[in-house]
């Protein structure tokens, strides 16, 4: 489904079109579920979160602005925010459930790999790639796995306050690099 079609479906959903909502769900559910399952790491929680996310998408479709975000990014943000809220409130989600670290992003990647990426993603990864190696991992683990500062501190064997400083500095560096 093209982004234009998704924009249309969201516009129709904003008017209460139930058939459009189902099409939107079918077109996007697997992506959103993939995003939240990575963060929640539990099928039952991920199912709850995905339900809440689509209810919110149904209720707030009128607020989607296609000039500010792509449809899938907007929807994924809603789902991801719900997932993060849930893991932050569930302090018992333990660090033992940590996945192995995802490794990232500094060197020049091979052209084939790059061709699969959008320009926007390449640009973002270039900016992430300018951070020190530990901080690259820090940022990407935080995003993909939804880890808290405490989890990141444990992973990097660093005080939480240091992680806090690194995160802040990293985000400001990325901002400058992206020209935000």
């Amino acid at each position, binding site marked *: 489904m093209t982004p*234009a079609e998704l924009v249309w479906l969201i*516009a129709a959903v904003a008017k209460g079109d139930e058939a459009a909502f189902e099409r939107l769900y079918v077109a996007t559910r697997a*992506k959103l579920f993939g995003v939240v399952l990575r963060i929640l790491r539990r099928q039952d929680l991920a199912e709850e979160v995905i339900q809440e996310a689509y209810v919110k998408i149904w209720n707030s479709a009128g607020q989607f602005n296609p000039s500010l975000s792509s449809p899938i990014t907007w929807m994924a943000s809603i789902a991801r925010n719900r997932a993060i809220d849930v893991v932050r409130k569930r302090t018992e989600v333990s660090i033992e459930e940590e996945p*192995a670290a995802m490794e990232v992003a500094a060197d020049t990647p091979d052209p084939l790999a790059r061709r699969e990426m959008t320009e926007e993603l390449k640009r973002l990864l270039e900016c992430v790639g300018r951070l020190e190696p530990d901080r690259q991992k820090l940022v990407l683990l935080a995003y993909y796995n939804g880890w808290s500062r405490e989890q990141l501190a444990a992973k990097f064997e660093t005080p939480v306050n240091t992680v806090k400083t690194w995160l802040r500095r990293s985000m400001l560096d990325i901002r400058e690099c992206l020209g935000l």
Partner: protein
Amino acid sequence: MMAHSEDDIALAAEYALGTLDADERAQVETMMSRDKDFTAIVAAWEYKLGILNQMVGSIEPPAEVWDKIKTAVGHAEPQPPLLLPDAAPPPPPPPPPPPPAAAAVVEPAAAPADTSNVIRLSAQARRWRRVATFTTAIAAALVAMIAVGVYQPDLLPDAIRPKPRVQVVEVKPPAVPAPSAQYVAVLQKDGGSPAFILTVDAATKNFTVRKVGAAAEPGKSFELWLISDKLPRPRSLGVIGGADFTARPVLSSYDTDTINTATYAVTVEQAGGSPDGNPHSAPVFTGKLIESVPSR
């Protein structure tokens, strides 16, 4: 946005990144409810970082999730009850396909930290894609298309002034989402570079206008018109070009033949559009629809 300190910007960024604790997240949400500019900063971060989700593999949720969502938003059951007393319960409405058996969380493999690079990231992403039911390439393509402007530039030069093909499209919206025919009109001036790209979905008659060149003079607006020999006068399709992307359903009141054979024209009107429903300038950009994505 100038009113926001670096602290606020970092806070917005960390909210989007997800590293704030529950109290800080609540604080950010309170700030967002009071401050539109701050909300825009958060949204910009969410969008920038959201691009990372292109690399996340898709995983099918179980079918019952959809039933719960429908119930939660109060959708009526679409199946009327059958009169046969002992009939089997009606089949569920067009169901999401069943989930893959016990959709497992796909873990990226551990790798030595020192050799990390984007190649590995991509290689892992490819591996997840193979495991996942849907491919992330779909989402990547979505964002790429938004980024470069809906349709490939190589479509543009040759697509100019094609013989208007009259497509008789049977408008039967499929129950299961299927790609429907997409029509594109390149709106331009005398064969010059395109100013707008109009796309129409044949099944829904929804249209989208992507601004690729022109900017209206200050105090003026571009307005899009449908001109057809079946209609006594041009019909306004609304003001366009205020944003890069305009999407509207207003074509739904026209029949498919009219839509496919019409000329689409852009005029310069006073800010906000023609006050009386008639165009007030000669068309500055015009074009006709051609089929770009055939229906299958």
